[in-house]
């Protein structure tokens, strides 16, 4: 544990059911029950939390400063020490982890949410591309992922049947996950954009996730089996797809190295791979063998609430440690087109 000044653990995790539409719910109404649930798991009240941090996107909400309203769901009165990243909640967790490392907080509440249902997320995501040269062409997220998948096939690293197997395994695993949006066997489906079929692509849905972090002995008091974050790091790559080898993820590999993934075997990997082909890339970057249980929750192919799906990976990995189903797990989150930015965390249970 000498890598960092303080021992910090995930002591609680909660998530909503992830649904194709939540027209009847405002974002505040979506977030509140999950916050109550995660706090109840620790017995802490919002006012007792040292630092709060959230992740979300104005572009999904369709308005500026959208996160100002969800803060109401936290019940930030008296005023709280709080911040927000316009990123997946995994990076909000990173900011909170840093805050605890400074010693200014002993606990943190981290949450993330996204409603993709009001618009076409496939089109909305084109707006995160280079605004002058690429975004005006409206290349959508599925088309870009298909480029990556085709590059993998051309390089001989996978084939369509192997991609289909990833999709089938993920949705089969999700049968044990009551929160997942898609569960059980699904047909591989029609081509969305060649070579990706329906089964290779994530569902579009709405959802929320929340985590509580705690330091040292406090974590031991709040949780029977804390999931210690023994390493965490994130790296970004060039934005332009023409500057990258889409069959590899050097940023994931570097983040994993800095987080200590390769120092000992892992038994579980929760990977934020919205497309089946991206799991192939990430497995290689993380050096995962067939003995590792990959996405036992079903992963992003079973539920991919934008801005929360990465935080869910950390939460799911931690929950397996809480349950005693994992001893050492790796969790991964991604942002940007074709795995541009990647965060990797190592979570470990106490030796028993």
């Amino acid at each position, binding site marked *: 544990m000498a890598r960092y000044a303080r021992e910090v653990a995930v002591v609680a995790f909660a998530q909503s059911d992830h649904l194709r539409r939540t027209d009847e719910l405002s974002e505040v109404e979506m977030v509140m029950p999950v916050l109550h649930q995660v706090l109840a798991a620790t017995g802490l009240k919002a006012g007792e939390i040292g630092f709060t941090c959230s992740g979300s996107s104005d572009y999904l909400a369709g308005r500026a400063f959208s996160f100002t309203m969800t803060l109401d769901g936290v019940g930030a009165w008296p*005023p709280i020490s709080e911040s927000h990243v316009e990123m997946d909640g995994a990076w909000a967790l990173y900011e909170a982890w840093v805050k605890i490392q400074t010693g200014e907080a002993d606990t943190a509440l981290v949450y993330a949410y996204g409603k993709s249902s009001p618009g076409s997320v496939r089109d909305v995501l084109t707006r995160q591309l280079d605004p002058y040269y690429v975004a005006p062409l409206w290349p959508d997220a599925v088309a870009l992922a298909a480029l990556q998948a085709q590059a993998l096939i051309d390089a001989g690293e996978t084939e369509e049947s192997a991609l289909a197997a990833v999709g089938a395994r993920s949705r089969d695993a999700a049968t044990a996950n009551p929160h997942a949006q898609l569960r059980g066997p699904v047909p591989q489906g029609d081509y969305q954009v060649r070579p990706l079929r329906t089964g290779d692509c994530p569902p579009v849905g709405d959802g929320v996730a929340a985590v509580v972090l705690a330091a040292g002995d406090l974590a031991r008091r709040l949780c029977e089996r804390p999931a210690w974050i023994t390493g965490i790091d994130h790296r970004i790559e*060039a934005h332009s797809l023409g500057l990258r080898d889409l069959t590899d993820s050097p940023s994931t590999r*570097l983040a994993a190295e800095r987080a200590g993934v390769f120092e000992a075997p892992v038994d579980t990997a929760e990977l934020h791979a919205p497309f089946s082909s991206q799991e192939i890339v990430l497995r290689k970057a993380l050096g995962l063998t067939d003995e590792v249980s990959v996405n036992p929750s079903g992963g992003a192919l079973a539920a991919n609430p934008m801005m929360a799906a990465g935080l869910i990976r950390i939460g799911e990995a931690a929950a397996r440690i809480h349950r005693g189903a994992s001893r050492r797990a790796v969790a991964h989150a991604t942002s940007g087109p074709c795995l541009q930015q990647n965060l990797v965390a190592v979570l470990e249970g106490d030796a028993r």
Partner: protein
Amino acid sequence: MSKEPVAIVGIGQTKHVAARHDVSIAGLVREAAARALADAELTWADVDAVVIGKAPDFFEGVMMPELYLADALGAVGKPMLRVHTAGSVGGSTALVAANLVAARVHRTVLTLAFEKQSESNAMWGLSLPVPFQQPLLAGAGGFFAPHVRAYMRRTGAPDTVGSLVAYKDRRNALKNPYAHLHEHDITLEKVQASPMLWDPIRYSETCPSSDGACAMILTDRAGAARSPKPAAWVHGGAMRSEPTLFAGKDFVSPQAGKDCAADVYRQAGITDPRREIDAVEMYVPFSWYEPMWLENLGFAAEGEGWKLTEAGVTELDGDLPVNPSGGVLSTNPIGASGMIRFAEAALQVRGQAGEHQVPGARRALGHAYGGGAQFFAMWLVGAQEPTS
């Protein structure tokens, strides 16, 4: 546990203007970052991580622009974080970067905030209607004007105070080569004769819409020892948030602002801010927020802030200069405005503020707020390394 002391060794900003048609968003941010690196006499390779902030993505129409900007900011292969806390974001972004150093996660961090408002219209970007939620009405002015009116009624401040602030800040801006508005012919009468926009806020008492970026290089004690120019040291920093709307909220003097200032003063060992702080860069987008924040930040008793302004205490040559740079009233690239406050405070204690330098400034406060006066970020910087 002890935190690593955090030093500001490089500061860069663009000349802020209404529209930078000559550069892309990437070109704009790179200009500020390159200036901060040059100031610190460091190169891109010396930077371990990048923390970037801006106000809503709708202002430029780019979702999560940090992805597109990774190359321009030398972040490829490095960690890059994107902070967004509404108008306070520039301050929050600097604090997140400072925490990376304080926690000894990274040794040298580039932090940057920007806004290229000419790509859109902030007034209407802030006015998108959402069902069942309180919109920000007609831009930020429509939201804040009633709270200014409440302040005037509560304190009995004469209606001339707002124009004094605007007149002061616009004159200060003439001494700051990076400020957006350089109104060489400004007079108090001109401010007072400007059109009423959101009663009681007049046109000349509002901030402009600017394109601009601000960057800082933060580093640890060893990095500061190598710095060729004097460092500014972080003596205290904090963020506080409260809900947008609720029955008990005091929009004139929000509790989150008071708590945030109290936390910063505690960290910095400040017991009498009026006497112990030499310069203040506060977030004043509408002139009346100077007297309001003077009270909220503990520089004046409740109801007394306007008296400091009226007596000239907050002038550049007063004994508590507020916004020697010209402030948000003279320069407002929204997402960068908070970081400019933080950076200008650091420039003051480094003795690098040029013509708008407060002589002998040793301790300065940088302040930012955002949302419905609900998000606060502040830091107190000093010329000397903190002792605790």
